[in-house]
């Protein structure tokens, strides 16, 4: 079943074509990695899929529904969740509250005005479990402004998981996270329901090749290659523009 379908997406900033007729699709259970040189347009693509930016042309289909003109909150409500390359956390709110807030949003209790937030044990429980899974229990009551950068990146992932996505877009979730902890993220992603579709942007080829079932290579806003990890590994062009000689695996 196709979860997400992107058709002929185009976007320019001024004269600069940042997304140049990109199409791809993601089916249930698929793990798609998007790679490409810096400035290739990966983040911009995710922004259009997530609804932060609006495409100039093309369509985005979520579960066969055309969501191109939907605002991002509506896409989130339909299971399309993303993380940010540059952390977007509430700097002075305890992490556990932020996760709880995401869960409240998901189960619709966020507008509750009369019940105390402490009277939702299942939500606090779930939030605590998500944090524990990413070994963030020790910082649960800290605020991002007093946390190490790597931990902030993990919180970003925790928030995405709390929303129980159907399609998860991860924009360099592991940048700044040491390998040992990056493994935690991968483990957490492994445990997600099998029918979940994941799109990950990552520059660490180890992780990409370990995780992805398919790889899409972008360059100058256009799709350069699309195939299994093995195909990509063997692709000379990709090697030349992106992987470099060290990157050969």
């Amino acid at each position, binding site marked *: 079943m196709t979860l997400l379908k992107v058709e002929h997406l185009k976007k320019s900033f001024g004269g600069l074509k940042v997304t140049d007729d990109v199409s791809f699709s993601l089916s249930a259970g698929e793990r798609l990695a998007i790679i490409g040189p810096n400035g290739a347009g990966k983040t911009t693509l995710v922004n259009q899929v997530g609804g932060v930016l609006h495409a100039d042309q093309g369509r985005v289909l979520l579960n066969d529904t055309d969501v191109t003109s939907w605002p991002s909150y509506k896409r989130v409500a339909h299971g399309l969740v993303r993380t940010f390359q540059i952390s977007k956390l*509430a700097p*002075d*709110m305890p992490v556990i509250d*932020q996760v709880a807030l995401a869960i409240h949003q998901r189960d619709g209790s966020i507008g509750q005005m009369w019940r105390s*937030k*402490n009277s939702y*044990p299942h939500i606090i429980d779930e939030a605590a479990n998500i944090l524990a899974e990413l070994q963030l229990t020790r910082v649960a009551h800290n605020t991002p402004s007093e946390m190490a950068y790597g931990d902030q990146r993990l919180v970003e992932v925790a928030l995405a998981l709390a929303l129980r996505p159907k399609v998860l877009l991860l924009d360099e979730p592991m940048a700044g996270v040491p390998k040992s902890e990056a493994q935690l993220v991968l483990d957490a992603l492994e445990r997600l329901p099998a029918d979940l579709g994941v799109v990950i942007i990552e520059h660490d080829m180890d992780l990409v090749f370990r995780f992805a079932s398919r790889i899409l290579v972008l360059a100058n806003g256009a799709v350069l290659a699309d195939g299994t990890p093995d195909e990509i590994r063997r692709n000379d062009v990709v090697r030349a523009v992106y992987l470099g000689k060290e990157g050969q695996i």
Partner: protein
Amino acid sequence: MTLSPVSAGMAMRQSPWGWLGYVAALAVIFLLYWYLPGQLLILTRIAMIAILVMSLDLVTGYGGLPTLGQAAMFGMGAYAAGLFAKFVMPDPLLGLLVAAGSGALLAFIAGLFLVRYQGLAFLMLTIAVALIMQNLASKLQFITGGDDGLSGFEVSPIFGQFQFDIFGVTGYWYSMIVMLVSFAVLRRIMRSPFGLCCVGIRENRDRMAANGTRIYPHLVKLYTLSGVFAGIAGGLFAQVNQVVGLDSLGFELSAEALVMLVLGGLGTLSGAIIGTTLYTMIHHFAATANPFHWLFVIGGLLMLVVFLPKGFLQQLMRRLGLNVLALFGRRA
């Protein structure tokens, strides 16, 4: 439902106050009444303004939107309560309801427009809304009395029992109890998921949007809620003073309320009460002792407060409160 072992230690700490706090507050209200009969009027004023400042705290403290137009809703409530007493019926509690309703209505209508903006734009727009309301009240002289103020209305006894008297006893109890109830209600609301959501919006809107939270309806809700309580404050003001002037819609009131709020600390309802008490007391005593130079005193205080450590005032007031209680305990 019970918490799993992982999260047991993680549940947000319950406040140690609870019911005991409210009982203590009632005791304080009673003690003040007993020992400071000469200050009832100023205490009444503090109670009324504290409700306004709490309502401002919702928007500015919790929602992160600094406003200088809170008086719009206050004045709306005041005029509504006054006109209701004058032309419909003199019952105070119904009047308060009407004041709350009209404050909410204005806040809802204005909020639909205002909360689209943030920062300086929001601040200036709130000023403009309040100024336009004031202009309107001035132009609608045949209803509002214009510059001369709305007077000539009477308020019937509360529950048919307690007549508003020249000594201000009824006014004192009425305002104090309405303030306490407002505090309890607001405190409860701001500790709900909705309250948390507002704080989230204040802290990082992008984050909330990424969660799939729509910012706009929540802010409209918050602004309307704030209008309810600003309206109640205004309604009380009209009923207790039995006169409403254009100043109840004025910029100065909004600005003073903001100063009181920042003085006491944002985002904590108790801060709103502390700030109001402190500012009003200092204004009152400095202006009585040496009206010509009270600006020095208040100016100096405002400058000083900024450099005090965070939560200093809360600590100070708490300690002061305990001392005062102890003092009364010994004397009583």
